[in-house]
């Protein structure tokens, strides 16, 4: 991992993209078990259809975990002060996600050099599914 510094970064700089494996039904089954989110709407097509959905769809928190990977691929996790996202659309099964990050702002607060990141997760259907942000503290 490159040693990033606050001073070397500029607003508009980008993080290396994270492109996920395809989110298959198996991915959703594994995430259901690993996350403890047993809502059947993510793994049981009969249940999903009975509740007005065409098919099962990805857990929002699976996609947010990918946003987390995007950031921890770039800085050590200990640098992360916050991670937030809105889930702006449903992610269908059999989707590949591309996660991107951009430096949105730099500021100093409480003696820490903080970098604000805009994070976006876009599905292979071209639609933005998550609009997020993170704050990371970097050495000078």
């Amino acid at each position, binding site marked *: 991992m490159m040693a990033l510094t606050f001073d070397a970064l500029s607003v508009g700089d980008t993080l290396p993209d994270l492109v996920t494996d395809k989110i298959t039904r198996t991915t959703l089954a594994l995430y259901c078990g*690993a996350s403890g989110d047993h809502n059947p*709407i993510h793994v049981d097509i009969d249940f999903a259809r009975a509740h007005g959905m065409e098919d099962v769809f990805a857990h929002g*928190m699976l996609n947010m975990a990918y946003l987390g990977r995007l950031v921890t691929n770039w800085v050590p996790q200990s640098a992360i002060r916050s991670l937030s996202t809105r889930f702006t659309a449903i992610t269908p099964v059999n989707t590949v996600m591309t996660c991107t990050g951009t430096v949105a702002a730099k500021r100093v607060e409480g003696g820490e050099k903080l970098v604000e990141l805009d994070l976006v997760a876009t599905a292979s259907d071209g639609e933005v599914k998550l609009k997020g942000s993170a704050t990371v503290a970097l050495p000078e």
Partner: protein
Amino acid sequence: MIDQQYIGHRMPPHSAVVEHGRLKFFAKATGQTDPVYWDSEAAKAAGHADLLAPPTFAIVLALENDRSFALFDLLGVEIGRVLHGSQDFQYFAPIVAGDTLTYQDRIDNIFAKKGGALEFVIRKTEVTNQRGEKVVEMASTIVVRNG
């Protein structure tokens, strides 16, 4: 409509242990490639006390102890109508394998949009470890489809 008397309601606190196996399973399920999340020796070599819990893991154990649907049962919300609207994590200290986390949930707000077709529940959760240190604060927006 969800009864607004639950605004301010606190769920009983509950605790759960961060198990090695659970972290490894979560790492697999989320495609982690960094071994600090699934190899204890690699985590220790990188300076962590043990396997590191990744940034979104804190919400996983919020669902332990049969808590998955407890909030929805309390509010009379059917699980099949629930969507996740937004999620926020504020970090104060790392979570590692072997920690015991205690969750304190509070319903921060309940409101409706689109004439009640969508209802929103804001849940805030404070997570502390076995030393009483606050490790994470979480805020979740839960959307209920009534249409």
